[in-house]
């Protein structure tokens, strides 16, 4: 359990203390990743099944490594080669898998609410690796961890998230993780990419990038997701890049000294982020990747570390 949470599906449901518990544990997990032998026996004999209905190499690999460092068994189950293409429903697929007694199901799905639907039908813990445009809790946690590690605390800090917030589950999880740890969150992007009523989630909206990053301690650049866009929301990627992309000049002139630049990856180099900034001194993108494994180790350890009810 993470506090009172049996699952890690929505940071909207997590308290500040529960989020902090994961981040504090991730500190120790990160230390394990830096040892010559990156393995501890804590989850020996536990099985973690990665159920990915959406393509993703990096997040899946991150969960896989996390499981293996903890000595758990990790099984990957991707939708293209499986019964879903034969018309089996999500619930049937999951119930079949559950009969093989996994300890934790890590699930990524294109439909918001899918992990919750799965969690209501299985006995084991469920970790969401992203559902539709709803949440991507481990990303929200690793982003908060990365900034907290560099700045010491998130209380009173300013975070700016730039990009297609409408379609972004990462943005929603970041709003919760940073907000609950005391940061002020600003959203920036074209009006067509700001979802209705988003201010009610506890953040402000500013369409001008210069104003939005003024004084920010950390800036998260979101990927422009061409594959998700239905109705045309952008005039052109060229205009987007001019107005909301981050290049060296803007980074030097508009960001305060010490401000951090994050990106959940993969980067559309040249669109939302210029290569020099992605590889530059303010960027903590590679830290995010390392921290991602540590945070996922923390989540798996806390959720899989206990015996599952009904199992011997």
């Amino acid at each position, binding site marked *: 359990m993470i506090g009172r949470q049996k699952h890690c599906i929505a940071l*909207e449901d997590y308290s500040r203390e529960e989020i902090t518990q994961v981040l504090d544990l991730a500190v120790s997990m990160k230390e394990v990743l830096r040892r010559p032998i990156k393995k501890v026996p804590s989850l020996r004999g536990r099985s973690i099944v990665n159920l990915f209905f959406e393509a993703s190499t990096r997040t899946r690999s991150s969960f896989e490594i996390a499981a293996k460092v903890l000595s758990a068994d990790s099984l990957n189950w991707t939708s293209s080669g499986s019964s879903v293409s034969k018309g089996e*429903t*999500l*619930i049937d697929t999951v119930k079949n898998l559950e009969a093989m007694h996994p300890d934790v199901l890590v699930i990524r*799905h*294109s*439909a*918001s*609410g*899918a992990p*919750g*639907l799965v969690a*209501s039908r299985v006995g084991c813990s469920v970790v969401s690796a992203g*559902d*539709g*445009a*709803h*949440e991507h809790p481990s990303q929200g946690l690793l982003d908060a961890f990365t900034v907290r590690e560099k700045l010491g605390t998130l209380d009173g800090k300013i975070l700016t998230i730039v990009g297609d917030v409408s379609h972004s*589950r990462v943005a*929603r999880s970041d709003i919760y993780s940073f907000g609950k740890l005391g940061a002020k969150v600003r959203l920036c992007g074209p009006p067509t990419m700001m*979802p*209705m*009523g*988003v201010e*009610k*989630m506890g953040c402000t909206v500013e369409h001008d990038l210069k104003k939005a990053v003024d004084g920010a301690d950390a800036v998260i650049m979101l990927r422009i997701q061409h594959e998700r866009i*239905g*109705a045309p929301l952008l005039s052109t990627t060229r205009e987007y890049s001019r107005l909301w992309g981050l290049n060296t000049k803007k980074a030097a002139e508009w960001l305060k000294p010490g401000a951090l630049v994050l990106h959940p990856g993969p980067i559309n180099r040249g669109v939302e982020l210029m290569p020099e900034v992605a590889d530059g001194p303010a960027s903590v993108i590679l830290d995010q990747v390392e921290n991602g494994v540590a945070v996922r180790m923390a989540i798996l350890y806390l959720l899989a570390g206990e015996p599952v009810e009904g199992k011997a």
Partner: protein
Amino acid sequence: MSDTIIIEGGRVIDPASGTDATRVVVLKDGKVAGVVERADRPSGATVVDAKGRWVTPGFLDLHVHLREPGQEYKETVATGARAAVAGGFTSVVCMPNTKPVNDTLAVTELILARAAAAGLARVYPCGAISKGSAGEELAEYGELQAGGCVALSDDGKPVMSPGLMRSALEYARAFGLPLTVHEEDLHLVGKGVMHEGAASTRLGLKGIPGQAEDVMVLRDVALAELTGGRLHIAHLSTAGSVRAVREAKKRGLKVTAEVTPHHLTLSDEDVARSGYSTDFKMSPPLRSVEDVKAVVEALADGTIDCIATDHAPHSLVEKQLEFDVALNGIVGLETAFPVCLALVKKGLLTEKRLIEALTASPARAFGLPGGTLAVGAPADLAILDPGAIWTFGPKTSFSKCFNSPWRGRALTGRCTHAYVGGRLVHQAGEGA
């Protein structure tokens, strides 16, 4: 039949005749013989004690989906008609989005034959506006009307082409048929699955703005003015639509509207609270709290004429899925009365207006018989216990499906008896 039925002691609420008093209702030979202060009990008459209960005309539902022909696993005319009378509805208008679509005499006659065989609620078929409801060519309204259709609809889909809508309104005038229209601009709906607002943003679900409905209502009101046709707005759900209908009525256009029990009582916040439950997914979606307030007020002041359930049975196969993918719709015949009665208890609707919205108003909107206890009217009645507490679910329900936000919930208010043509077709307490 020379059956005489005497219903005593009940509070008779018949808005069509302006009655709201304790009266004895006398039914003879399938018709209302009298609504009087005192009546003799002739020998051989059945006497029904309705003390503590309401006696009203049987309800009319202008919008149900009976799924037959083609999807009998979800519902049939017979099971739907049984569920209807259990809810107090003695007449229902069934939508044509069956498989095949009801755009021919053959399908209309099939539905009527099934209804006659069931001998329960009166079923009035609604024919399609366009062939196959494909939105391209007009169906044969003359034939449909001759076969027994009382209205036309492409329900489930909007009529996207304004040209076709104009022609349909004009052509239908020749037959005196109203068009009941499912209003949403598909370009604004896109891939939306719930109302667009703070709730859909939090849930990460694609949203449908209320204006997707408003723009079509405004369009069709304009076309109703152009053509002089009869326009009935199905399942009206937004404040914008209310304003459009109010304006249309002020200008004397032949526009009427219905609203569902769920749009009167549930909002997009309820969807959020439900944890992505597909029992809260329907089209049009549950709207904002402001929209709910607007439609309740509109029903109270008559801008919205009547209540119609949009009873839409779906099996578990179609509903136990991710929210994005589950089919739209909930059942509603058996829960309509208690759900709407709650509005009366909250002081938002009078008892008289509630019953009127279920009886006289729908009858008037479609020109149907019934909805009244006037002497000589068919003996279609409901006896309602406004205080009865019961749970809606598979054990108490007559529909084949239970996709409802009230499944498993305790409800207050129930139809205890229903009569169609003087025959008792429902008595509460008899198992499903």
